[in-house]
């Protein structure tokens, strides 16, 4: 009886040690291809964020934005979506209607990335050009809290024009930006690496950010962000 118990104990201990060793080995850089093949990612699979963690991160950011602002926004533009109201089903319907593909980021359904979005699908002026991608974040309770767009590989001229148009539209609805840096000109954006134009409209319940950043060698990236700070 004792011998059997000892064998079982030794087996369990050996198995635990082997499993621990295997997990340790999988954390080595050389194991990255194995992880990628098995989990579709080279990163430790237990390190993925959860919807609750994503919510918490947004809440921290929103609280900081609220604390630094003085008044609620006169409008809460979000490319045709409605912050704190639009839900995943609305996004799915919009994407299907326009033939746009949106996918969950890293398996998290609350973070959706839509690729190659034509400006017309968002009802914005054609002169700002198509979006390389649009990212939407939903709370775990289902409401939209952030819309972000990226246009990359632009020339300084294209980026200056796009950022200028976007900021002009934002200023018309929201007033002058609370924070401004650089200038929406080709000359400024072409100065060199990370030459940036940024305009931030910050309120107690909302933030709109328009930025353009030179990122050699790929070109200038124009980013829009429309975020709920409630």
């Amino acid at each position: 009886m004792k011998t059997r118990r000892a064998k079982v104990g030794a087996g369990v201990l050996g198995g635990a040690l082997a499993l621990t060793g295997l997990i340790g080995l999988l954390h080595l850089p050389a194991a990255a291809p194995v992880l990628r093949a098995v989990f579709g990612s080279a990163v430790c699979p237990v390190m993925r964020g959860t919807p609750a963690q994503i919510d918490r991160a947004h809440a921290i950011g929103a609280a900081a934005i609220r604390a630094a602002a003085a008044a609620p926004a006169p409008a809460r533009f979000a490319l045709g979506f409605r912050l704190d109201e639009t839900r995943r089903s609305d996004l799915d319907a919009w994407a299907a209607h326009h033939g746009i593909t949106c996918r969950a980021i890293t398996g998290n359904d609350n973070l959706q990335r839509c690729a190659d979005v034509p400006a017309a699908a968002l009802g914005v002026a054609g002169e700002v050009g198509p979006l390389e991608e649009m990212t939407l974040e939903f709370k775990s309770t289902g409401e939209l809290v952030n819309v972000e767009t990226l246009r990359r590989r632009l020339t300084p001229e294209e980026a200056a024009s796009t950022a200028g148009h976007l900021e002009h539209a934002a200023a018309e609805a929201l007033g002058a930006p609370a924070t401004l840096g650089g200038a929406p000109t080709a000359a400024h954006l072409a100065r060199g690496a990370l030459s940036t134009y940024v305009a931030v409209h910050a309120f107690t319940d909302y933030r709109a950010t328009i930025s353009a950043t030179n990122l050699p060698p790929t070109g200038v990236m124009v980013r829009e962000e429309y975020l709920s700070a409630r």
Partner: protein
Amino acid sequence: MHRSSIRAGKWGTAVVALALGATSLIACGSDKGASPMGGGAGTTGAAGAGAATLSLYERLGGKSGLEAFVKDVVETKILTDADLKTFFFNQVATPIPAGHPSATQIVVCFGRFVGAALGADSYPGAPAADAANTNTPSFTCRSMVEAHQGASSMLHIGSGTFDKFVGAIASSLMPLVKPTATQAGEITQAEFDALAAALTGQKASVTTAGASATLGPFPN
């Protein structure tokens, strides 16, 4: 090299590590180190023109100002970004997994790191304390170079993520640029350019070959 140039170059390098290390500090690996400048920190040299009486450290608000800058970037730029926030999942977990710093501890480490690069603080210094981080109430700040190596091996950072991250830093710094930066909260264009060069110069050491060239949200 002019003294102010050296200082600005070091500052730029420090903030590079600050920015890029923000993600790697919490990497899967258990990298630890001591040197704030490490072996991968290059100076950029061209900064300093136009800066006047107040030193860069003073214009950045000293220890409290640096910590406030880092805190603001992390909270309002990184944690609000759908891609970048996922690198900080441990900091928003309850409780924070053992061995990982809290956001407060990260802010202390980065502020101290930049201060040390400017000759006004020491790094890693005493462990950063945060009683709220119950599993790791005392966290020893890590070498940024070690953290970067951890990042490149485990976080699988792609060039798209890198670009977006440095873009967030640039959008926080650009509003500080003034023609003649003489007051608190101001930097010169030359200081910005030096920082930009240092930031972008870290790309090869931070990104992973084969990672997504577009965005690679964690885990990629």
